[in-house]
């Protein structure tokens, strides 16, 4: 009898295991479907209603944790959802927005999130801003809260600032902070040529940039909130902060104190700089990898720009890329590199520049884009996403979600970008 029970239990467990496995496989492609609607009793602010709703939908798409439902539903904010209709349309989550403007002209967005499968209101929140232009941050906050309800991997990075510089005229540029879609923008440094902005820490309360206000370029550090400006170093020819260590204490600089562009390691506490490369050609764009023990950088050692690596404090230089005719931009996260590679020999014209992901510790290489000019790659702070600029007929800001093998484009209205950091 006991053997029969054991066999029965064994078969039951086997059957359950198979079922569970099948369930996971079945559901991998069936993410929860969410429907986002703007209530009909919202204030008559069509522009923000439409823009806000579209950006929330886009954020949820970019998260890769939701399917978007396209059905249009008319509802008042306080009305009970028509669960039957929602279920018939395969909707799992239902988000209703109501935008109003109070007496002080402040925009208030109230949200209600319903779990259709349990017929329950699961989240009710309120968001506000005094300026219509800031609606992207409202959208990102709302998307983050909806994502949080699912306990899905964090998308808090959506609420972080992006910093970039753009050319305005000859020898004139400005430094701008924006949301990750570059929809909201605020100029933080203007006047003259100010380029290569780089966040000084993960809190994003300060940034480095290169100023051309003097006879020779200077590396500046500016506090985003107090406006405190500090001149760290100057260099004949050029000086650029290429990377900042995770703890914010070490910088990788390209500078040329002896008329020769090389890569230096700068300690922000001791103020001591140490030369890392010493090649008679061009070495630029150093980025930390492997716990800040090694750098990858761009060099013309092969008579064209390519990516190399070097352990800090050692002599050997390792070639990293064996394809492409111009590999002059890279970004790193942990042990991974994303680089831009020109695929054709023609130096002018409509060349394809594609992005590739590779590991510093294995032969792993993955192509991330297939057409157009894809440049300025930047890892997000958690290493899960890549921000880049895609130029075809027009320029777009691209986001690649590495773990989901998906990419998204946002139209770019920012003029000619010089440099970008995330």
């Amino acid at each position, binding site marked *: 009898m006991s053997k029969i029970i054991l066999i029965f239990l064994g078969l039951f467990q086997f059957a359950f295991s198979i079922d569970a496995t099948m369930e996971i496989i079945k559901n991998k492609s069936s993410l929860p479907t969410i429907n986002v609607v703007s209530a009909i009793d919202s204030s008559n602010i069509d522009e923000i209603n439409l823009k806000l709703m579209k950006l929330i939908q886009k954020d949820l798409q970019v998260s890769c944790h939701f399917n978007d439902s396209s059905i249009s539903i008319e509802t008042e904010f306080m009305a009970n959802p028509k669960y039957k209709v929602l279920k018939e349309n395969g909707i799992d989550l239902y988000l209703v927005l109501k935008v109003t403007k109070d007496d002080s002209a402040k925009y208030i967005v109230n949200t209600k999130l319903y779990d259709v499968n349990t017929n329950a209101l699961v989240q009710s929140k*309120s968001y506000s801003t005094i300026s219509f232009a800031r609606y992207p941050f409202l959208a990102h906050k709302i998307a983050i809260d909806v994502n949080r309800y699912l306990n899905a991997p964090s998308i808090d990075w959506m609420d972080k600032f992006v910093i970039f510089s753009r050319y305005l005229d000859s020898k004139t540029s400005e430094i701008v902070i924006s949301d990750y879609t570059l929809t909201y923008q605020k100029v933080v*440094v*203007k006047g003259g040529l100010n380029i290569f902005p780089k966040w000084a820490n993960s809190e994003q309360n300060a940034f480095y940039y290169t100023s051309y206000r003097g*006879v020779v370029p200077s590396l500046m550090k500016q506090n985003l909130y107090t406006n405190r400006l500090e001149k760290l170093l100057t260099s004949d020819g050029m000086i650029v902060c290429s990377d900042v260590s995770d703890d914010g204490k070490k910088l990788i600089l390209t500078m040329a104190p002896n008329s020769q562009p090389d890569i230096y390691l700068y300690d922000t506490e001791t103020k001591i700089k140490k030369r890392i490369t010493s090649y008679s050609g061009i070495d630029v764009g150093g980025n930390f990898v492997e716990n800040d023990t090694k750098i990858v950088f761009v060099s013309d050692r092969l008579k064209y720009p390519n990516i190399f690596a070097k352990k800090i404090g050692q002599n050997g230089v390792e070639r990293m890329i064996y394809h492409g005719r111009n590999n002059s931009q890279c970004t790193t996260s942990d042990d*991974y590199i994303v680089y831009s590679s020109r695929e054709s020999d023609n130096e002018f014209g409509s060349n394809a520049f594609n992005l590739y992901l590779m590991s510093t510790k294995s032969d792993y290489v993955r192509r991330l884009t297939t057409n157009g000019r894809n440049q300025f790659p930047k890892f997000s702070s958690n290493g899960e996403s890549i921000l880049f600029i895609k130029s075809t007929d027009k320029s777009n800001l691209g986001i690649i979600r590495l773990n989901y093998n998906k990419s998204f484009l946002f139209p770019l209205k920012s003029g000619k970008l010089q440099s970008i950091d995330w």
Partner: protein
Amino acid sequence: MKNILKKTLLGVCAVSLFAGCASKDVEYDDSSMSTNVDQKIDEVAVSDESTMVTSTINENSSNSIDRLQKITNSSVNNVQSDVDGKVVVLESVHFAFDKYKLNDDMREVATSNYGKIDETIQSYNELKIKLEGNCDEWGSDEYNYALGLKRAKATKDALVADGVNKDSIVMVSFGESNPVCTQKNTACWKMNRRVDYRLLP
């Protein structure tokens, strides 16, 4: 990255299982506090470099730079410098795509410029020479600035070889930020791959 992948896979499984889970217990999340997005933006300060006083940079040099900014180019290939009323016209030196070596023709231009500089230095021995390296638009951001610097360095080496004191030369690279021609054709890009000579009295 491995940890991130692991967490993400767990998260994706959680998301995936959610879709088919009809009897999931839910908690109602009602925030009494409204989330305001203004604070972190309102407090952001804006700096205007054009209104700043340059206290740590040599004021004389700064004034010279300001004065030179007002001097107009007589042609796209020449830069005029005003040295106490005397106009010195120096020809820009041009380079091949992605190159920073002077060819024979451009070496002659550099030598010709040296002759004019040497003549001016006889009268103004405090004269500084500023070499500005420039590139076309076909490069990456940081690499282009280094390429501009290498071009400036090539012209500096030529001047020093011809007899100019190296301490009287300063260099700066403007990368692709200072084009003299903004059309999209090879002739225009060629004009932008250059080094401009400026004299700072």
